[in-house]
């Protein structure tokens, strides 16, 4: 008797999920779920699912629940295209990729082609975290939207902040080889150089990407150069190792970093003991003064154990999508794109944001914050007891750069 009950119940559940799968709005996440970058993907997926659950609990978009499908692109551009086809076959309407800009380019190219060949079955691309300016610049597409500030906007924000820091005149550049590090280095030299012509570049080093295990020689060199500040676009293990080496070597210079909110970096920074010396130049962080942000962070952390603010793109994407769906009154791809252009919403940091119609780039404020030993009860990062203290909010109009996008509209 009991057995039949269970059978009956599971049959019901099966039918229910089957029915649910029929009329959900499918949102595909195409990212490296295996390999060294999987740690980042995991965190992104967590934030995305959390935001989607919020929307679904409030009734979904136009009555439809959002369903997340995940596809492993193994950090390869070719695999991204293969997985995109799978996602489309599974009925996905929006394809999001975050971890690497080369994957985003591959996805945009694939979707452009797909949409041209299948006018009745078009899809949208969301770029959740890769901050390459080319995504909304030369590679911009009518079907693609970027939900994080690009590297040039952040550099413009850094340049703006440095105009107030006239005490810094000797700056060292430390970047990895490869396109991301080198384009950032170039724009730092141009934009910061223009804003602060009195700054002297006392060093300019390019090192191999994610291959160095010992950064102490670089720290010795930076120290010998007399630099007051280091600007680096390093991320992941490189950033963690270089900051640990700086702490050990007793380097007094301040660090301006683009990716120190990312997974693993706060742990390394707290270990390094560089109290108040590492600045994050990013879309925002848990130190930004906003009640909405702190409420969101508190709820998210109790659910996942991690901080949500390193991945603002996912919250922005889901909020913008929700608003756009409401505005359009439909979940059809073309209505959504039209509504997403110029959509106004609030980021996870509680700041006003919009998607610029000319290039589909998010336009919002950014934050410069420093990493300090925070008092008990304040939001810390990765359980270290250290957290972000905001030093400047750079308003959106300061970092809005002219668009270089020549968009082909259907």
């Amino acid at each position: 008797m009991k057995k039949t009950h269970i059978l009956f119940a599971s049959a019901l559940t099966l039918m229910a999920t089957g029915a649910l799968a029929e009329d959900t709005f499918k949102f595909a996440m195409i990212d490296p779920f295996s390999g060294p970058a999987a740690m980042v993907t995991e965190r992104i997926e967590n934030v995305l699912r959390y935001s989607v659950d919020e929307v679904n609990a409030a009734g979904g978009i136009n009555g439809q629940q959002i369903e997340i499908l995940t596809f492993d692109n193994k950090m390869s551009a070719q695999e991204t295209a293969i997985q995109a086809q799978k996602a489309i076959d599974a009925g996905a309407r929006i394809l999001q990729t975050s971890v690497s800009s080369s994957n985003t380019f591959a996805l945009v190219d694939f979707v452009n082609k797909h949409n041209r060949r299948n006018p009745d079955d078009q899809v949208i691309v969301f770029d959740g975290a890769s901050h390459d300016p080319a995504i909304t610049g030369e590679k911009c597409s009518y079907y693609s939207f970027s939900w994080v500030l690009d590297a040039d906007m952040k550099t413009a924000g850094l340049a703006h902040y440095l105009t107030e820091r006239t005490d810094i005149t000797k700056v060292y550049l430390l970047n990895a080889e490869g396109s991301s590090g080198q384009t950032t280095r170039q724009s730092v030299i141009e934009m910061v150089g223009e804003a602060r012509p009195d700054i002297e570049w006392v060093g300019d080093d390019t090192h191999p990407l994610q291959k160095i295990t010992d950064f102490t020689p670089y720290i010795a060199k930076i120290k010998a150069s007399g630099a007051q500040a280091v600007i680096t676009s390093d991320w992941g293990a490189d950033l963690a190792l270089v900051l640990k080496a700086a702490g050990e070597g007793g380097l007094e210079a301040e660090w301006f970093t683009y990716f120190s909110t990312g997974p693993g970096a706060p742990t390394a920074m707290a270990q390094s003991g560089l109290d108040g010396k590492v600045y994050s130049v990013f879309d925002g962080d848990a130190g930004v003064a906003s009640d909405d942000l702190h409420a969101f962070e508190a709820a998210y952390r109790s659910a996942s154990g991690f901080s949500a603010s390193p991945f603002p793109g996912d919250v922005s994407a889901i909020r913008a999508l929700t608003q756009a769906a409401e505005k359009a009154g439909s979940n059809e791809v073309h209505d959504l794109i039209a509504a997403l252009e110029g959509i106004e919403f609030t980021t996870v940091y509680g700041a006003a944001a919009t998607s610029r119609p000319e290039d589909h780039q998010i336009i919002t404020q950014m934050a410069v914050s420093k990493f300090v030993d925070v008092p008990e009860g304040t939001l810390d990062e990765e359980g270290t007891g250290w957290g972000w203290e905001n030093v400047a909010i750079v308003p959106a109009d300061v970092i809005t750069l002219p668009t270089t996008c020549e968009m082909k509209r259907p």
Partner: protein
Amino acid sequence: MSAEVITFSLLNGTLYGMLLFLLASGLTLIFSMMGVLNFAHASFFMIGAYFGFEISKYVGFFPALILAPILVGLVGALIERYGLRRVHKFGHLGELLFTIGVAFVIEEAVQMIWGRSPMDYQIPAALDFTAFEIFGTGYPAFRLFMLIMSVAIFAALALLLTRTRVGLVVKASLTHPEMVSMLGHDVPLVFMSVFGVGSALAGIAGVIGGPILITQPSMAMSLGPILFVIVVVGGLGSLSGAFVASLLVGFIQTFAVAIDLSVADVFGLVGVTQPPAALGALVSDIWNVSVSQIGPVIPYLLLVAVLIFRPMGLFGKRA
């Protein structure tokens, strides 16, 4: 280059070289004994760091420094006894493939147990102070401790191999296994012990390297390739070769970073400031690349050069 930079490069180069030696010594021991190039060696280094982190949470760093390597050595010995020894009959290629497989298994296992995020493995408070100051810069005591540990282990290993009965048996098993076996020694046990000790050495490197590097699942793969450079350059199976090659690689990597000289600078000395257009785009690409930029690649160039010109390595006895 100022005296300050030279002093620090010497110190840092020695230290990094000695850390590499701790790893390479085990690898070269295992190779000279069993002829197996152990691709999983850096993985033992990684589990050494993870074990060190876990154990030091309960009993402190110094007991962990002893317990963790013992555990790693046991894991290594078990892998030799129940894995490698069975694969042995399929020849060296089988053994090589086996160790590559083990490396992947260990990495996945570490990810499953500890997750993909880095561990918060900190320098023990007892060693978290400045040892001495030169040129106004403090040198951390923990680094000095690493240096002393590495030198002590090198000395102990050298003494063990050259001055004791155990060393005699080990060396004899390497060249004349049948004869040693005839004399009543258990050669497979010797092999297993050597594999265990080699793994334990990597484990020690992990315990003391973990707080300085980042204790995360990718740490093995990032250190693995450079170990093979050391073993090949030093001479496969030569302990003193591994010692010299470790220091050499340490110095190359630290000094290269300090040198900003590029092709353009060299030609600038003789008055040539622009690359000759006739040589094309390739030359203009490398024109401004400085030594510091290619520093981390130089050891691999050395590897290629040694393989071409002196395949037995600097101190090796066989090719």
